[in-house]
């Protein structure tokens, strides 16, 4: 990474209480210049409260927020070098598209002249490919068009940090995936630092360079999309991002380059690469993603990491199918099979199958 040494946005020990409830608990984050950062979490996890504190609509109960090295925690929203794109877009219904985009420019202290503002508005509308709609009113636009206008409006004042609140929340599914890439392109071409809030993990993984998973007002994990997916550090993160099988296991053999664990669901031990940071006899969670599990109708010649069960359910999804395999212990294990043959469905309901995975596939979860 070739970033400036000083982060563009720094959140230090920020907490927010509403009455007796703690919405955000001692959050620390630092976000680099030009980065697209996603706050990901379910509803009520505090992500929106955190975003509203960045915008200035809420004042932190404790801690401080720095933008470009300056403490902005107590600065009112209209004086912050931060602009927000609202979930509902919040376009002013009584103004045209051009007037909406010009609104922020007209509020500046050293106001530009009228022709300069008009020129800038046209530039911004061209950037989001809405230059032909400048005179329309917001209620004459489609959802995707409104979003582009809202994006142009929030970029107009060249904010140091751009905030996106559930940016695709108001769009239908098909438009969503198209707009995700388009919005990222625009943000990257402008080079603005961006913090977005979303509950949709796919959206976060598509759009963001880094993701922070939030739960109950706390940050569970921060990392790139693949770090969060492949190396979850807690059961919550593993379960929130994608699908996962988690086995409760006990450490039985501890070596420098591998660890063996016993699990009630398997007849053989589970083996994971490298030693774990826990003593013998301690119980841990072992997470295996469904696509890392291979399914076979022949018993594998392995000493570790395999189990057997009966196919209970198959969800056919076109490109691939999800198989739910019921073990003797009653646990259900999920695995994915690619449908690369049009005619043959090798495995069907009630079949006895063997599932196995490699030593590098499983992730150890300490909490």
């Amino acid at each position, binding site marked *: 990474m070739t970033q400036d040494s000083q982060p563009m946005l720094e959140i230090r020990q920020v907490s927010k209480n509403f009455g007796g409830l703690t919405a955000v608990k001692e959050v620390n984050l630092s976000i680099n210049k030009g980065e697209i950062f996603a706050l990901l979490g379910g509803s009520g996890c505090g992500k929106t409260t955190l975003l509203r504190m960045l915008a200035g609509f809420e004042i932190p109960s404790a801690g401080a927020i720095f933008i470009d090295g300056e403490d902005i925690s107590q600065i009112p929203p209209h004086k912050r070098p931060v602009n927000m794109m609202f979930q509902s877009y919040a376009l002013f219904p009584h103004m045209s598209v051009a007037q909406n985009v010009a609104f922020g420019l007209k509020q500046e202290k050293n106001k530009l002249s009228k022709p300069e503002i008009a020129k800038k508005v046209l530039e911004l509308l061209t950037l989001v490919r809405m230059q032909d709609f400048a005179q329309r009113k917001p209620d004459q636009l489609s959802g995707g068009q409104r979003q582009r206008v809202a994006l142009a409006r929030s970029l107009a*004042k060249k904010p140091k940090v751009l905030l996106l609140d559930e940016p695709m929340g108001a769009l239908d599914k098909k438009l969503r995936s198209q707009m995700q890439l388009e919005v990222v392109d625009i943000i990257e071409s402008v080079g603005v630092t961006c913090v977005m809030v979303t509950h949709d993990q796919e959206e976060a993984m598509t759009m963001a360079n880094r993701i922070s998973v939030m739960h109950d007002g706390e940050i569970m994990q921060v990392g790139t999309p693949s770090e969060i997916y492949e190396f979850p550090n807690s059961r919550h993160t593993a379960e929130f991002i994608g699908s996962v099988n988690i086995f409760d296991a006990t450490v039985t053999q501890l070596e420098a380059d591998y660890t063996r664990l016993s699990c009630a669901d398997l007849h053989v031990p589970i083996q994971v690469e490298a030693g774990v940071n826990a003593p013998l006899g301690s119980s841990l969670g072992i997470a295996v993603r469904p696509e890392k599990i291979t399914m076979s109708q022949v018993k594998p010649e392995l000493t570790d990491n395999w189990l057997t069960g009966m196919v209970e359910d198959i969800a056919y999804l076109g490109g691939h199918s999800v198989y739910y395999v019921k073990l003797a212990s009653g646990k259900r294990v999920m695995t994915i099979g690619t449908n690369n043959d049009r005619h043959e469905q090798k495995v069907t309901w009630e079949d006895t199958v063997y599932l196995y995975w490699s030593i590098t596939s499983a992730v150890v979860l300490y909490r």
Partner: protein
Amino acid sequence: MGKKVSSLGKTYLTLGFIFLYLPILILIIFSFNESKLVTVWGGFSTKWYGELLNDKQMLGAAWMSFKIAFLAASSAVVLGTMASIVMVRMGKFKGKAAFASMITAPLVMPEVITGLSLLLLFVAMAQTIGWPAGRGMLTILIAHVTFCTAFVAVVVSSRLREMDVSLEEAARDLGAPPWKVFFLVTLPIIAPALVSGWLLAFTLSLDDLVIASFVSGPGSTTLPMVVYSSVRLGLSPKINALATIIVLLATTGVLTAWWLARRVETQSVNLPTGDS
């Protein structure tokens, strides 16, 4: 749209409209009555309009009523909007529920009680601080502002509650200080409610007889008071003529407002799609 209304539907509609407008129609017809007796048709004539123009007392009262209604409605819109903003936007504060119910209380208060209490207040104030010195147009105006504010507050606060708060937040976010947010964003969006609040207050003030009777003084007679007292002495067809003029003014006002609103609407729809 474009669906044909059944004949039964048409009958219902006609009956409804007859119920609403027949009395007014009869009033207008009888304003052109030749006869001095209000209920007996004596041929067509416009003489009562002429007589009305010469009746200085009635014209004076009408002018007084319009002045009071205009001022009361305007002040009520300002006060009512201020109250609504505190109620809807300022968050929680101690005694909010009590204030919210108290602001609507004048709506359900019998007018007799409102009138009497205001009269007692004005008398007491005149005795202790010497203001208002006597009862007249000022006291009627104050009384009308009192109850009109309640009506405006109800209309405006419901509109404010419906309005998306993120619009105001967006304006702040884009750099507008709170007072500018109010004038550039909130006010234009709630403007329809202010207009209907003003019209409601204007009508209520113009219409009021009971409260005005309590707080008026010599030389400040409103139109309803004149009409009411002349009815007791025997109805003159002049009043029909006056009522017809008021109906005409009101209809013109409503039609103009509708026409303007429609023109704005069609204008925004027919905007060039951008090749300009």
